[in-house]
């Protein structure tokens, strides 16, 4: 049984096939990149996986369990977290509270126990403290101490991306979907992000699905790469194999480059 498997996945919006007959599987602990031109269907694939879209056909299985038709919050409960291409942070909360929302799944305080937050010893007080400690560990891990109490709406773009990653990590996922984590970052921030993504794979043992346009980064950190265009698979393989594929060269370097012999 593969760790994560997509089979014959298709979805169309008003006759336009956004994804058609897409199949692949991801091994546990892998960094699996998905690349392709704009509009190829990469984000649509993520939206299908985490339940925002319901695919027309095909199956998505995570550790043997089917995810098709599951609501996003149920998918999150299965151990799949994601970040968004266009940042979707809770802009009126500070960094700490954003990360604490990532702990939502692991907390139990409801209306009554929340209303009776009478001191440290109460259920809610205890749970808050334990989970804030966990959130603080993530803040340390991603170097966010300086913005811990800042409202995220006012943070620089690059930092907001990191807070999103922190929030996703706070859910303690087994599978992490990263939608263009480096978009809009300067080279220094990119270096940090690459470093963290590798750490998340190595130290936390999280499997990562990555959408990214920065080819250097993708080739550098991915174990395998899926190339899609017009919602269909172009090729799938290791970074070296993908780089040599004629259609990939055509898509990324242009028609002429593909016709010329590769140096």
């Amino acid at each position, binding site marked *: 049984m593969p760790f994560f498997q997509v089979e014959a996945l298709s979805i169309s919006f008003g006759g336009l096939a956004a994804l058609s007959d897409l199949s692949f599987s991801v091994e546990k602990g892998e960094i699996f990149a998905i690349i392709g031109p704009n509009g190829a269907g990469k984000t649509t694939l993520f939206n299908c996986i985490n339940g925002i879209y319901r695919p027309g056909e095909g199956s998505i299985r995570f550790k043997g369990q089917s995810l098709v038709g599951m609501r996003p919050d149920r998918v999150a409960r299965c151990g799949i977290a994601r970040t968004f291409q266009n940042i979707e*942070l809770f802009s009126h909360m500070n960094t700490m509270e954003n990360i604490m929302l990532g702990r939502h799944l692991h907390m139990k305080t409801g209306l009554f126990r929340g209303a009776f937050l009478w001191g440290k010893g109460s259920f809610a007080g205890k749970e808050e403290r334990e989970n804030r400690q966990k959130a603080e560990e993530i803040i340390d891990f991603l170097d966010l101490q300086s913005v811990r109490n800042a409202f995220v709406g006012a943070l620089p773009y690059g930092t907001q991306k990191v807070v999103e990653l922190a929030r996703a990590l706070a859910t303690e996922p087994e599978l992490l979907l990263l939608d263009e984590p480096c978009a809009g970052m300067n080279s220094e921030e990119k270096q940090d992000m690459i470093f963290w993504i590798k750490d998340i794979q190595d130290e936390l043992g999280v499997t990562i699905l990555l959408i990214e346009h920065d080819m250097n980064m993708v080739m550098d950190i991915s174990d395998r790469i899926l190339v899609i265009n017009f919602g269909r698979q172009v090729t799938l393989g290791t970074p070296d194999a993908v780089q040599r594929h004629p259609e990939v060269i055509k898509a990324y370097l242009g028609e002429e480059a593909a016709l010329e012999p590769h140096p």
Partner: protein
Amino acid sequence: MDMKRDYYEDIRFFTSGVTVFWFVVLIVFLSAFPFLVKNYYVYVANYMAINVIVAVGLNILVGYTGQISLGHAGFFAIGAYGTVTLMTSAHVPFLPALFLAAGTAAFFGFLLGLPALRLEGPYLAIVTLGFGLTVTQVIGKLDFFGGRQGLHAPDLVIGSWNLDTDREFYYLVMVITVVMVVAVRNIIKTRVGRAFIAIRDADIAAEAMGVNLVVFKTLAFALSAFCTGIAGGLYAFVLRFIEPEIFTLLMSIMFLAMVVVGGLGSIMGSITGACLLSWMDLQLRNILSFPHVGTWLESLSRMYFSITGVSNIQFILFGGIMIAIMLFEPLGIFGIWIRTKKYWKTWPF
């Protein structure tokens, strides 16, 4: 620079010795208040406190969860009628009747939350508006609820304590108000409140992080309706007589105005907004008896504003003050408070 030693410090109620001091001052003041003022002002305070409960409850929905309601007078009516009929027809004691009635309001809140799963903004406003209007129409039609004639509130007795004066009733209202405001504040600071705010700021992301939108959106409606139901039940005993005409659309809009004028997403804001607007509502009509200005305002009103010849300058002033607050401080009274606090922190620079 504030140093944190414990994660509990982020959420605890008393952030420093100063807040403990002010809280004690507030409690002492509230306890002594009925002995310091005329009976009429005790009545005003009761009216204010009830509006505070509504505003804090409505703020959960509008300010924190980002939904809208133009139908809270409906929940208010359910609370009021529920409490009175349970006491008179079923002979339930006051406190259980109050909570049962508020529970009924919460149930209707839950039902009204269901369309909110698909609708937002102006569309949700219309649905809630329809709810508010329907409730009073239905109540007015049913003889069980006294129909158009209305209902008299029974004597208010808790155990062996007969609360037959405004002063005695004041203590009951204040205890309930303080407990409810503190409870709501605690809910907002913990997991449920964070989920509400997350839904407001980015509902897709909230769902992707594991927040069940169905549960938490309907919960926000139910909780908000529960608070309003409690306030409605108390209000029946302030008026001592209830009829459907009390629970109008204007009432719903006034509740909303309290939350917005006070400052969306702030409990202190809701409290001050409710106090200010209910005070203006009761006191602004006295402006006509001001020396010199009063007569001038009255003639001004008769000449230019009034259609029926009855003076209406107080409503115009009311509207003018609300416009001025929103114009100069879009964050409401809470925004003014934040700026004052900043100013004093850095004073004299």
